[in-house]
């Protein structure tokens, strides 16, 4: 009974604890042994490309997908045994909006609250409060369909808050939104964090992970390849700065030719990335060595660079 032994080792204050978590769909193994601890009050991220196993992991935590193997505790309970009890205390924002198109904006919040067994008076007051939070008060009695993508997302998040969850699960919260809508959404998520709501976010946007997450794991091919805060990960797996060089394809030097000028060189289809502590200095060195790029850009390292280092691939194709 190794599963039982593992669950005994769990400490009580973590909201989510997973050990050796696996998910199989027939012959395909989407999650291949994941260990995760999420503490109360933190914003925890799963960063990885599409198909990394982030959503499958989230669905297991949300108690809507039975695990194939491993130990999992959410709010100190086992999803296989206490699914409904756990779901009563968490909020879920799915990857694709699944709002009730036969109901109005306000009714979406009220009826969803009723699924949690909340009283009619309670959900009525709560809906008004959440409409304010989602900045949808003016649209309260409109149907859902004509809302913009950002509004639907905000409504979906407001809906997930109707039961005042201790843990909020957000699966790719800003995918498909324009920059303005994303920033508004991030601001709302910050506010929830300040109010002490623990959040787990999956994303394939490195800027989102950097903006929102206290701590994150990088997932690839169903396993965790690195774990830490965004700053820690960048420090551990990348250099302070990156020099991006674009060349005329005919005159593009082999990466090896530039290797001595930087700590590390990555080759992408359209550019070369030179990892270095001082980008401007390296830029000068490149010019002195006689290379003539079409353009050069110095920037800070990001989680994208961490991901590239760890997997040899970019996050968003």
């Amino acid at each position: 009974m190794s599963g039982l032994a593992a669950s005994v080792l769990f400490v009580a204050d973590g909201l989510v604890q997973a050990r050796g978590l696996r998910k199989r769909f027939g012959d395909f193994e989407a999650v291949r042994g994941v260990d995760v601890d999420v503490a109360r009050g933190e914003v925890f991220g799963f960063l990885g490309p599409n198909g990394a196993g982030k959503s499958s992991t989230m669905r297991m935590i949300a108690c809507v997908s039975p695990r194939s193997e491993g130990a999992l505790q959410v709010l100190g309970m086992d999803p296989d045994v206490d699914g409904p009890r756990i779901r009563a205390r968490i909020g879920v924002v799915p990857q694709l909006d699944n709002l009730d198109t036969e109901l109005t904006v306000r009714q979406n919040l009220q009826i969803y609250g009723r699924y949690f067994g909340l009283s009619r008076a309670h959900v009525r007051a709560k809906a008004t409060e959440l409409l304010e939070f989602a900045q949808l008060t003016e649209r309260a009695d409109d149907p859902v369909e004509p809302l913009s993508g950002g509004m639907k997302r905000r409504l979906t998040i407001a809906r997930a808050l109707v039961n005042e969850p201790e843990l909020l699960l957000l699966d790719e919260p800003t995918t498909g939104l324009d920059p303005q809508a994303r920033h508004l959404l991030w601001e709302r998520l910050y506010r929830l964090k300040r109010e002490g709501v623990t959040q787990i976010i999956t994303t394939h946007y490195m800027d989102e992970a950097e903006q929102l997450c206290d701590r994150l794991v990088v997932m690839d091919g169903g396993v965790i390849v690195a774990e830490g805060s965004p700053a820690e990960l960048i420090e551990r797996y990348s250099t302070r700065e990156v020099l991006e060089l674009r060349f005329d394809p005919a005159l593009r030097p082999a990466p090896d030719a530039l290797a001595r000028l930087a700590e590390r060189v990555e080759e992408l289809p359209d550019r070369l990335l030179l990892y270095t502590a001082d980008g401007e200095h390296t830029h000068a060195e490149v010019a002195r060595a006689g290379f003539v790029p079409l353009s050069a850009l110095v920037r800070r390292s990001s989680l994208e660079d961490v991901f590239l280092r760890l997997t040899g691939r970019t996050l968003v194709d």
Partner: protein
Amino acid sequence: MTAQVPAPPAPPALLRLLPAGSYAGRSRALLLRSATASRRAWLAFVSGFFEPVFYLVAMGQGLGSLVGVLPGPDGAPISYAAFIAPGLLAASAMNGAVFDSTFNVFFKLKYGRLYEAMLSTPLGPVDIALGEIGWALIRGGLYALGFLSVMAGFGLLVSPWALLALPAALVVAFAFAAVGMAATSYMRSWQDFDLVTLAILPMFLFSTTFYPLSVYPRWLQLVVEFLPLFHAVELMRGLTTGAVHLGMVGHLAYFLVMIVVGVTVASRRLDVLLLR
């Protein structure tokens, strides 16, 4: 404001046989949802009421003037309208329930992803199956009540037994809704709904709705006696004309089997489809 999210109660003994977490005892929340949603779609609701009334007027009064009288369930002659009215009553209970549990459920399952949203709450697949079937049943029951009032208006309810036609219609609606929802869980696209029409329309026409079983040769009678709507029509016709006999328990048993099989299959399928 603090939430008072009540923990879902432990399921009743019978339902403990189902996988843990499949029933939170809150199917009523789904009824509330359907009632709220139908406030905006009341026209579809009303049209379902008029359909059998049109049939009754066209066939019962129009065609009935040519047909005259027919032998009733107990052999006593009854008017053609009195003969077909219970058939139409059974058919309207069937139609309301089937429409709700197939087209509406399929849309929510495939496009609205509505059940997915519900399963993120304490609700489980059994709550959803019972809630949706329950709504189809209420709708079928309301159609039946409306049609029974019309029958009363035309003087077609000649026996006090007719009072039992309403609960009987609810049983019929429940059975068709349960089986309809179970069938819907196997459908892949809208094309598959042609099969629903293919099942419902001939059943409506040939299950002794418009003429007695005796017009068929024996082998065809056996086929018709196998159809669920035939049992519904027999049940209704016996009750509205007062020709009540013990054999009706058999008709009820037919529907109880449909209910048990339908609810079980529908819940299991929702589990398989959504909780992967």
